[in-house]
């Protein structure tokens, strides 16, 4: 990655020009990607009338925390937030454990049946029962309205499993595993004492992938967890963001009539977007340096 750093001395005039052009293009791309998020952030702390009058392109207008206060005073949103945290924590632990339990045996070259087992899992990437048959089986196994309906039917995340398996094959020194074997360590001991500690970087990536998937998921919850008590945050936000309706609790707490309620609804849209998106946006940069490495290990077909 640090390939180009030491070549400055050979830089001629035209090299510099193309460098600047490149930086300029990248800056434009950067702006296109970042500005919508920045705009929502600014709007979330501004007076909504000013937002809709076009006064908040660059800086907030009539700075206020009212939107955030309303979001955190709404019991529906708070419940959704709590549900999402619960699903994300339990789901991530479950998924990563399953991922490791699957990926390690399939990375052991001398395991009899390894290939057949790999195919057994990989087929599910390309072919599945589809929405309704899966729904009916989830129903038959009694998971409707049960939190585990979010985790169990997903089973093994095969794409991620292949990345982890290839990481085990390519990045864990064979000598260490052989040495453990000679010392008489069991396969399980080798896995826990050598493989798991040596794969922290790929584990970090997988933890973040799982967290993001569970935090952002709403479709599974919409189908398998009907009713408002168990709805995760994105599903709660659907009423606010997509259907554009104020929740009953907001309507009852806001005095000042329809105009005030309307203003509040608009403010909550912006602040709830920030509240829902921020946790994941804070977390991923911490493991970003492992992304490329992980994908490299995954892309090399072992």
């Amino acid at each position: 990655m640090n390939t180009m750093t030491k070549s400055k001395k050979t830089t001629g005039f035209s090299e510099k020009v193309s460098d600047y052009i490149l930086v300029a293009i990248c800056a434009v791309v950067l702006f296109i990607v970042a500005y919508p998020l920045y705009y929502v952030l600014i709007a979330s702390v501004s007076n909504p009338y000013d937002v809709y009058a076009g006064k908040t392109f660059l800086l907030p207008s009539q700075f206020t925390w009212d939107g955030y206060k309303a979001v955190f005073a709404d019991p529906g949103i708070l419940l959704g937030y709590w549900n999402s945290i619960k699903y994300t924590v339990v789901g991530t632990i479950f998924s990563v454990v399953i991922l490791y339990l699957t990926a390690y045996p399939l990375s052991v070259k001398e395991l009899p049946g390894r290939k057949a087992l790999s195919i057994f899992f990989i087929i599910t990437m390309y072919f599945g029962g589809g929405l309704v048959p899966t729904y009916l089986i989830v129903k038959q196994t009694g998971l409707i309205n049960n939190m585990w309906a979010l985790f169990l039917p997903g089973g093994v995340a095969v794409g991620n499993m292949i990345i982890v398996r290839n990481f085990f094959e390519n990045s864990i020194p064979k000598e260490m595993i052989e040495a453990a074997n000679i010392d008489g360590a069991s396969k399980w001991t080798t896995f826990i004492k050598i493989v798991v500690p040596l794969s922290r970087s790929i584990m970090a990536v997988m933890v973040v992938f799982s967290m993001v998937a569970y935090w952002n998921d709403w479709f599974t919850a919409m189908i398998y967890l009907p009713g408002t008590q168990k709805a995760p945050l994105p599903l709660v936000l659907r009423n606010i963001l997509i259907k554009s309706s104020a929740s009953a609790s907001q309507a009852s707490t806001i005095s000042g009539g329809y105009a005030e309620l309307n203003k509040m609804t608009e403010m909550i849209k912006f602040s709830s977007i920030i509240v829902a998106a921020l946790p994941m946006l804070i977390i991923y940069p911490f493991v970003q340096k492992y992304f490329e490495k992980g994908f490299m290990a995954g892309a090399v077909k072992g």
Partner: protein
Amino acid sequence: MSGSKSAVTSPAIMSGGKPLEKRIKDNWQLYLMLLIPVILTIIYKYVPMYGIQIAFRDYKASRGMWGSEWIGLEWFERFFTAPTCARMIKNTLLLSFYSLLWGFPIPVILALMLNQLRFQRFKRVTQTVLYAPHFISTMVICGMIRIFLSPSGGLINLIAGTSIDFLTESAAFRTIYIASGIWQDAGWGIIVYMATLASVDTSLYEAAKVDGASMFQRILHIDVPQLTSIMVLNLIMSAGSLMNVGFEKVWLLQTDLNKATSDVIAVYVYQQGIENAKYSYSTAVGLFNTVVNIILLIVVNKIAGKISEDTSFI
């Protein structure tokens, strides 16, 4: 062969050093590790596959998935004669074809540019920002789209000085869907290309510079050839999912007035199956979708296999 585990072995493995039975016994802990994943996959992946048969049955809750009456291809006939059938197939294919057409080259171009950036900190910041939208929920993205496109005070209308309600215009739907898709995922799409480019031998650039090659020439003659095989691979995978238009975004952006272009099979499968509880019919439509996908995947893989021998999907 040793009893219960013989099902997972294949003759090709017999060629190892120790006898097969011994090697299976040596690895019992590994098989035990696989137990839960295998059971989960059987119950929630393979049993539903077997359950696809309700597409050929008249599913009645009282008689269950395996006991309902066989009725052959009736549900398929009903789908193909439905008034919106042709429109849904067309919308599904066009939406993903245009997504691929616009969405495929952009990550490649971005990766080629970023890879040439000499200022490491700027490069890292750019990458971080480009990844960000990928980590946001479809629900939130669609909320943002609705806010930005709002006819009264939406960002796009403010900038353009108009008051168009874009989500009621069926002519605008594909553009909205594809542009927002690129905004969200093009940045994430560069990772695999960046990782490939990171393995390019630095001395090639130095040699090219000595020979007076410009940056553009270096990209064209050193970087692009490196990316060809991974690009072909990506193209195959995408072509194999041409019928897989994501349900979530279309459903959240659909309005009664843009249905002429936003009516797609995935949404229909959900509405018929979950909302209307027409289990057999929905399964039949879903199965049709899957079969078309698999045919596309095989065809494209054959064609691409002829183009480049060393690429094939996993």
